């Protein structure tokens, strides 16, 4: 499916409760860079766990969708790929999950054109978030392909708005590795931005944020089952229906700051392991 503008009530309530995705009202007077710089002088709880990272507007849908769809339970092992300083990892940890965030941008504190001051993901900042919220999310500053993690051990994996920033081969590489890390019967929740300025919707081959990856190619043959997601709304699937998506645009959550929407899908590893 593609995220809709009209969010279910439980999504709206969840966003309101956690201050997702921009941080709570108390944080609004400060820009993200100032919140991080003044971390020791502000009240992180008043600001909420989502206040410390610049975020795409499609996260209004993505975070509550991921939370409610993944059905995390205390004690579950959760892998969050490319989570930066986003609040969801800390929320899941506060609810008793054992969370690992694998993000190579933590090596240099930079992401794309965003400077360290704006992006903010450094091991130091991440630890400050852990300390502030009383949790112990593990940060691995590597690609998930390079991270030394035990295979078949994660009950849930998340990869939210990451793949569109990569080329098709890198995206596939991440998915293959996560498929191996997932435990039998584990769920892998993925969102992928769909850019309206990039082909097949627009005239550009790619934009400065990335491109429209072929979701079907990326997820096929991994030994995972598509258990959630409408193939008519997932680019690359034979059922993908461009005209239908265009017709649906008024109902879709399109970011006001960049013309994109959010494709969402869930892959499940069969209980007997990958086939």
């Amino acid at each position, binding site marked *: 499916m593609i995220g809709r503008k009209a969010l279910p009530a439980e999504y709206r309530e969840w966003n309101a409760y956690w201050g997702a995705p921009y941080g709570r009202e108390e944080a609004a*007077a*400060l*820009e993200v*860079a*100032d919140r991080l710089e003044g971390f020791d002088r502000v009240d992180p709880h008043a600001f909420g766990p989502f206040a410390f990272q610049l975020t795409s507007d499609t996260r209004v849908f993505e975070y509550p969708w991921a939370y409610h769809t993944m059905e995390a339970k205390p004690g579950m092992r959760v892998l969050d790929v490319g989570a930066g300083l986003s609040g969801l990892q800390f929320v899941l940890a506060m609810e008793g999950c054992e969370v690992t965030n694998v993000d190579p941008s933590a090596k240099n504190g930079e992401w794309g*054109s965003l*400077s360290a*001051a704006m992006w903010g993901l450094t091991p130091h900042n991440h630890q400050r978030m852990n300390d502030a919220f009383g949790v112990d999310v593990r940060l691995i500053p590597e690609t998930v392909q390079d991270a030394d993690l035990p295979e078949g051990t994660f009950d849930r994996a998340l990869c939210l708005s990451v793949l569109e920033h990569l080329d098709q081969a890198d995206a596939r590489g991440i998915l293959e590795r996560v498929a191996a890390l997932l435990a039998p019967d584990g769920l892998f929740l993925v969102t992928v931005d769909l*850019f*309206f*300025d990039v082909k097949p*919707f*627009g*005239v*550009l081959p790619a*934009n*400065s944020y990335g491109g429209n990856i072929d979701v079907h190619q990326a997820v096929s043959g991994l030994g995972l089952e598509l258990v959630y997601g409408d193939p008519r709304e997932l680019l690359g699937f034979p059922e993908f229906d461009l005209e239908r998506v*265009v017709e649906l*645009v008024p109902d879709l959550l*399109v970011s*006001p700051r*960049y*013309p994109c929407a959010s494709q969402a899908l869930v892959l499940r590893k069969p209980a007997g392991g990958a086939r």
Partner: protein
Amino acid sequence: MIGRAPLQDEYLEWNRTWGAPYGRGPSAMVSFRRRLEKVDPDAYGPFAFQAQRGLKTFQYPWAYFTAGVRPGMRVMLSGEGLGGFQFVLAMNGLQVVNVDPTAAGEPARAHARINRAFGTDVRLVTDLSEAAALEQGSFDRVFLLSTLDHLGERAGRAVLESSAALLAPGGLCLITADLLLHLRPLGVLPEGPAERNVDLRRLTDGLGLELAHGDPRELYGFPEFDRGRVVEMLPEMFVGPFYPSVSQTAVLGKPG
């Protein structure tokens, strides 16, 4: 015409000199709030006080060099907010009026602080009745830089009619209008949340102004506009790094 990449050397040099369009290097590590609390003209430069989508990298130097401004000229900008271009013109000895109804309140107080810091005297007009009282036929240049694409057709036409009336005989109206690549006729979406691809022919027709600069094949709405050619030439065009758009440019002259 539509702005091309790479930028000409004189445009790059102008941007370097003024720290356009994002502000000088040191400002990158400081939030807008802090930049505005304590305006540091040397460290930040005049362009550090308003967020930009990126096309201004081309538009500001294009406007500066195309306008042929000279000290003493009277110029008006529409919807320039806290943008640095107005202060650069003032530092170059021009009399500058910025008409921006959206800049009332705190932005106006910030505008005053920037004026003081740079030793300029840009007049900010936020009140529409005050704008209506500006002397007609008195401005040598009018700048509408990425203003029209944020207005509806009626409001855009009103701004242009008012600009035409304010221009002195022989004066020039410099226009940039973002051409958004995700919106029709280039993309599939009809319009964005706060912008649209405006019909430039309809907006500028019958104002008593002449098209002095601009390639109608690259101005949406003109009968000569050639979508296929624009798409083909995209690799040569300056595409906004933070929003999918290119910059149409036109200069309208008021007969002397």
